[in-house]
């Protein structure tokens, strides 16, 4: 695997839209060609090389390409946008849409990331070592298809609207979560190791939420359904089981109604 390192040299005055920072766009290009890739600062078209120092050549394909983003990328949007393979490592913080619409490969963000990370993600792996913003793994505005595959791990906290309209895949949040988790979800799993505030699973049709900490306020549409023992990350524990959202429509499978599941550690 070939590694391309891009280092921020001119921090943009406004914000940079750089959907070209992805193994797919870099593949088959040398450092000079990568520096010519288009980016936008507001309505002004520019090149990646104006903002970043580019070193190293990319591999022949996306799968053979690793990108390391160094320096202050706090004002850079769309890193890893629509990536299908390869690897991206962001060494500091990044702005919105990290790994949005990603389909494959591995993206690691060592700092905090902004809102809309992994929007409508279909596959691959996203690791956020800092905190995630709002709308992690959610659908794009107006779309009813959120994250449908792949894995997300957030080592810090997540904002609100995690997994909105989620259809599949897994999100694990080691820290706490703000309001609205898996709203409108029809599949997938969100595991919260810390605490959550409220509105978990509102309008949820199907899917699973597992929470280890506290929930400030439960949704009234979630009905107690006994206790179960679950194995999460190799450790067994007892959980209170709730089904819902009872106010929402639900599908039938083999004659039985399928509900969303919420497991809260006892």
């Amino acid at each position, binding site marked *: 695997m070939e590694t391309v390192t891009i280092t921020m040299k001119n921090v943009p*005055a*406004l*914000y940079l*839209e750089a959907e070209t920072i992805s193994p797919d766009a870099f593949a088959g290009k040398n450092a000079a060609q990568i520096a010519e890739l288009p980016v*936008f*600062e*507001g*309505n*002004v078209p520019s090149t990646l090389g104006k903002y970043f120092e580019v070193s190293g050549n990319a591999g022949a394909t996306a799968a053979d390409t690793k990108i390391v983003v160094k320096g202050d990328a706090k004002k850079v949007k769309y890193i890893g946008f629509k990536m299908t393979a390869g690897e991206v490592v962001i060494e500091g913080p990044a702005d*919105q*849409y990290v790994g949005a619409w990603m389909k494959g490969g591995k993206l690691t963000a060592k700092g905090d990331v902004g*809102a*809309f990370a992994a929007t409508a993600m279909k596959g691959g792996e996203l690791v956020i070592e800092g905190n995630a913003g*709002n*709308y992690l793994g959610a659908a*794009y*505005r*107006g779309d*009813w298809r959120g994250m449908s595959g792949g894995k997300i791990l957030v080592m810090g906290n997540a904002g609100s609207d995690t997994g909105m309209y989620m259809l599949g895949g897994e999100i694990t949040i080691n820290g706490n979560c703000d*309001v*609205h988790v898996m*709203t*409108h979800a029809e599949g997938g799993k969100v595991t919260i190791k810390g605490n959550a505030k*409220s*509105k978990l699973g*509102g*309008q949820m049709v199907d899917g699973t939420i597992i929470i280890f900490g506290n929930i400030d*306020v*439960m*949704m*009234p*549409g979630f*009905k107690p359904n006994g206790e179960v023992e679950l194995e999460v990350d190799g450790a067994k524990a007892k959980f209170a089981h709730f089904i819902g*959202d*009872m*106010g*929402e429509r639900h599908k039938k499978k083999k004659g039985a109604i399928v509900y969303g599941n919420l497991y809260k550690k006892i």
Partner: protein
Amino acid sequence: MTKVITDVICPFCGTLCDDVEVTVSDDGKKLLEVANACVIGTEKFLHSQSSDRVTKPRLRQEDGSWKDISYEEAADYTAKLLAKARKPLMYGWSSTNCEAQCVGNEIAEVAKACCDNTAAVCHGTTLIAVQDIGLPSCTLGEVKNRADRIIFWGCNPAHAHPRHMSRYSIFPRGFFTGKGQMSRKLVVVDPRCTDTAKMADVHLQIEQGRDYELLDAFRVALKGEWLPDVVAGIHAEKIREVADILKSGRFGIIFFGMGVTQSLSKNHNIDAAIALTKDLNEHTKYSIMPMRGHYNVTGSGEVFAWQFGFPYSVDLTRGFARYNPGDSSSIDLLLRGEIDAMFTIGSDPGAHFPISAVKQIAKVDSVCIDPHMTPTSGVSKLHVPVAFNGVETGGNCYRMDNVPIDCRKVVEPPEGMKTDLEFLTMVCDRLKKLKGVA
């Protein structure tokens, strides 16, 4: 001699009352009296006559004072500002007519700007929810003639839309609602005991920020499922009792305001309220309608939607329309420091945005087009006063139920004063020349 002009449209709130009577002097230059309008609408008409009105564009000088300039100089300044900016924000539009909004959109397209209307701090979240799950709605005429179950959720029309209740929602005697208020049951959901709540048959004094839970609880109650003892501070029996009241009507309407659109859960509150409306339609006929604030904020959404495909928070910087509130919405753009020029028309973000966002307006190049002296004109570099739309010039506007109504001119503006449309056309022509797209 004076003359009375009847059937005048009131350019204040989204109710867009169309029965106002205005008395003007014989030469049509002085507006003397206003009848039928509410106290706020009356003030809006009379304010056009105030003696301290700014009548010439003013440019801020280095020492902080204002210098009067001509409309031509103001248009030059505005066009240059927009041509130079890398990410200008063109905000407002809700207190001007659709014709001016159209020219504004043309400017935005040439300047590759972000454009947004006051829905950003008002019913924008409603528009997000509508896009997510649709909107079963009706006109206010249907409400007047048919509705026998009225729900005001997180809104206080007694103060914000003063004639809404007398013209459409509570008191009028309609075709199927011949007994007026007696034919209707009024349910108010509000954490405060407002003047609207005092009139209600049922006032659910909900815990602040728990609307989403209560809406969900209503949906659960309609399905006859299990409920916890208390939801949002309301007992389960009460929720089931009110659900029965809602079901028992022949035609129900949910009106909602900023108490739900701008409190915790925002668009999800509206999403759940629309879902509740759909559920109620399994039992009887129900509609839902946002209580839009500015008299033509609905029109601004319509114009944005038919020209750009999205009703607010449109980002044209890349040459095509993108929309994602949170990224392309005004307050986020300002707070995150994403824009380098601010163009305000027909609204007052200085009074309604968080102070940190207003400080950001003061930092960048800015133009404020407004007949009034406002906090926004106070922080802007250029203030362009214009004729009062709906008083000194006519134009198309949309009522809160999406019914288009033409506003009327009742009095002459001060001599030499331009309208929004005239000034924007001047800016548009100059900008096109600067950008070479004439």
